[in-house]
């Protein structure tokens, strides 16, 4: 079975965004638990933050294939 070292590198690189996304949703769940009526506002912000943190992982996978 052959593979590329890039993929191992990508796996390591994905730890960062993974932790970041975890923190974002932890904060979101906390916020909704404290103030359920704020859910719709928080949801937009949480998904936006998720998308921005995820961008790092996305750039990583793109580079893993390109480099």
């Amino acid at each position, binding site marked *: *079975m052959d*593979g590329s070292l890039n993929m191992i590198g990508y796996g390591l690189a994905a730890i960062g965004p993974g932790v970041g996304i975890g923190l974002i949703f932890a904060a979101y769940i906390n916020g909704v638990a404290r103030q359920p009526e704020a859910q*719709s506002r928080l949801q*937009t912000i949480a*998904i*936006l933050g*998720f*998308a921005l943190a*995820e*961008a790092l992982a*996305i*750039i990583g*996978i*793109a580079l893993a*294939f390109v480099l």
Partner: protein
Amino acid sequence: MTTEGRTVLAEFHPPGPADFDLPPIFGDVTKPMVLYVLSAVLIFGCFYIASRRAAVVPSKAQFAGEYAYNFVRNSIARDSIGSHDFMKFVPYLTALFFLILVNNYYGLIPFFQFPTFSHSGYAYGLAALTWILYNGVGIAKHGFLGYFKLQSVPGGVSGPILLLIVPLEFMSNILVRPVTLALRLFANMFAGHLLLILFTLGGSYLVFDSGNILYAPVGVVAWLLAVAVSFLEALVMFLQAYVFTLLTAQYIGGALADEH
């Protein structure tokens, strides 16, 4: 794999980007092109049926159409652009949302089974459209220099730190935004579909081709995981359509914002 019979075991080749290069159906027309055009026809047809006999007391189709339209109008466009001038952008955002949604869900529907945006060109096209739109409305509102000042000079910053902030903000707001927008959609669809291919092909290799009966249960587990991944993909596909549209709306809102 080999013509020698079963003496040499077929080797498992993990799927890669080459699996996305589908042969053309006729001429230079490939499957994603057909699916892309079909999605436009489908969306137009659904909304046409939904709005054909609009009445005060809505029919079932009209109710569904209005519900879908209201989702984009209220929870994406109005919340991000602001109630003053969001209506102009609702048609674009609605079309964008449903185009991405339908094209993503092709990945799960039998016989289609190919998310169009796992070919990066389609995602680049949409991101370029969004880039032109938000820069265009920003320049139309603030003027050329005013718009670049708005996008690259954050409020409340002064002094030599501006030398550092201005190029960074310019890069992130003008240059990197369309790239991440396109790559996010493309890479999610690409990676998700690759994962599905991996689990299904890996499962069938373990069950049928590995030549070892003890591997078969593991192959069945791989198939079960493929089902689980399909459900995850269903979520991701919706989320990507939502995120793309939401970010487009946010960028438009940011370009239209007054000086802070």
